[in-house]
């Protein structure tokens, strides 16, 4: 099965656009919904300044294909591998050194919400609906939702949302810090696009990537380690800029 048909990729003005394309609700057929090798190929373009995830049509994504998961339930080892591969894909997205925005219109459930949580910034339309409905099927989020959500919303609100399985609207999600910006009805992509251009269009790729690396280090390294790297990144940019100014004078 060539599941990459259900995800499309294009580059516009140095911004990559990943569209979940499995209408009507953009179900993710398997957890590794884009083969990691293919995704890495898309994002290896060194001129890329940012990435936006969106859903084709009206919705972002209703999440994973539960049938596929139940089918694998008598092969625990292969189900385990399948979930692990999905999680590995989300880690690759999270670790990109360009900004990644999720543009969320309407439905964003389960695995779809986990994809959105792996992005660096979340824009949701005012009619967006977010939920972890897994509990209603006697399951739980399986691609990192249980630790990505508390990092934003805190332990107790996350427990409430994951145990309750209830739908959260855009305003509530903003309040819980699960999303960062609210766009007008069905306009999440347009909003995300304009935000992305404001952040990247006048910036050299190297500046963008250095800042993103420093931000990533801030959450992963000890303070002194992160600072050592930040200083190196800063000095490299300063050297470039000093050189650029000199050649302009000449």
């Amino acid at each position, binding site marked *: 099965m060539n599941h990459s048909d259900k995800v499309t990729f294009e580059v516009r003005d140095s911004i990559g656009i990943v569209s979940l394309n499995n209408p009507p609700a953009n179900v993710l057929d398997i957890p590794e919904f884009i083969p990691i090798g293919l995704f890495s190929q898309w994002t290896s373009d060194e001129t890329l300044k940012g990435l936006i995830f969106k859903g084709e049509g009206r919705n972002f994504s209703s999440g994973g294909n539960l049938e596929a998961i139940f089918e694998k339930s008598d092969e625990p080892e292969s189900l385990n591998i399948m979930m692990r591969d999905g999680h590995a894909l989300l880690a690759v997205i999270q670790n990109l050194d360009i900004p990644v925005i999720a543009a969320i219109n309407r439905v964003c459930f389960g695995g779809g919400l986990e994809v959105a949580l792996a992005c660096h910034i979340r824009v949701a339309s005012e009619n967006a609906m977010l939920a972890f409905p897994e509990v209603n099927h006697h399951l739980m989020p399986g691609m990192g939702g249980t630790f990505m959500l508390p990092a*934003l919303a805190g332990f107790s609100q996350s427990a409430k949302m994951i145990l309750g399985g209830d739908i959260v609207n855009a305003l509530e999600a903003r309040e819980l810090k699960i999303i*960062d910006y609210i766009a007008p009805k069905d306009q999440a992509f347009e909003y995300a696009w304009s935000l992305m251009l*404001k952040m990247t269009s006048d910036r050299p790729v190297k500046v963008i990537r250095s800042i993103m690396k420093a*931000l990533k280090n801030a959450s992963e390294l000890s303070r002194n380690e992160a600072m*050592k790297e930040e200083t190196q990144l800063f*000095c490299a940019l*300063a050297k470039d800029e*000093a050189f650029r100014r000199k050649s302009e004078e000449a």
Partner: protein
Amino acid sequence: MTLQWTIEQDIGRLILNQPPSNTMTMEFFQEMQVLVNEISTMENLRAVIISGSGRHYSSGADIAELLRNVDHRTMIENYRAFVMLEQLEIPVISAIRGVCLGSAFELALFSHFRLCANDAVLGLPESTYNLMPGIGGIQKVAALAGKARAIEIILRGVTFSASEAKEMGLVDGTFPKNDVIPVSIAFANALPVNFKSAERSVYLHKFLKPLHAKD
């Protein structure tokens, strides 16, 4: 001297003093390192209040000078001075009026508290000079405002208002500009002698809230 240091009733007043906009030169950072070292040995000091001479806190580093002289060791030393300031066992309060940009905002972020004039203008504009914040501001903004906001304000390099900064968690209180210094002094005096920076939010609730003008 680009820094002015006085002690009034056990409160140290550190004034960035390079008018009109108190640019932070290499000389400033050297003086800063020496001074913070001295402060760390002073007894009977209750608090340090950092502010700018005149209308502004500071417009940040002198970019042209910085680009001529930048090296890894100097940057790390500047950062260490900020960390030493943060590690003082007495409260360090930045009283922000006018502009507070770039390295100056980073200095404010290394203070334990940021009290801000309503009409102050803050930001990290480094990316608009093809640079990035280089003295720990990136880490501080991410910790206070979250990663998404940090990405936005640092990549865009736009300035923001005091109330926007308050909303993002980057400053602790906003006041009419003539009240910022008096409120900072009153707040410093209200803080307990056995100040612990980990109790920040408790102190804000207990001692800063009552200082907001009742209207």
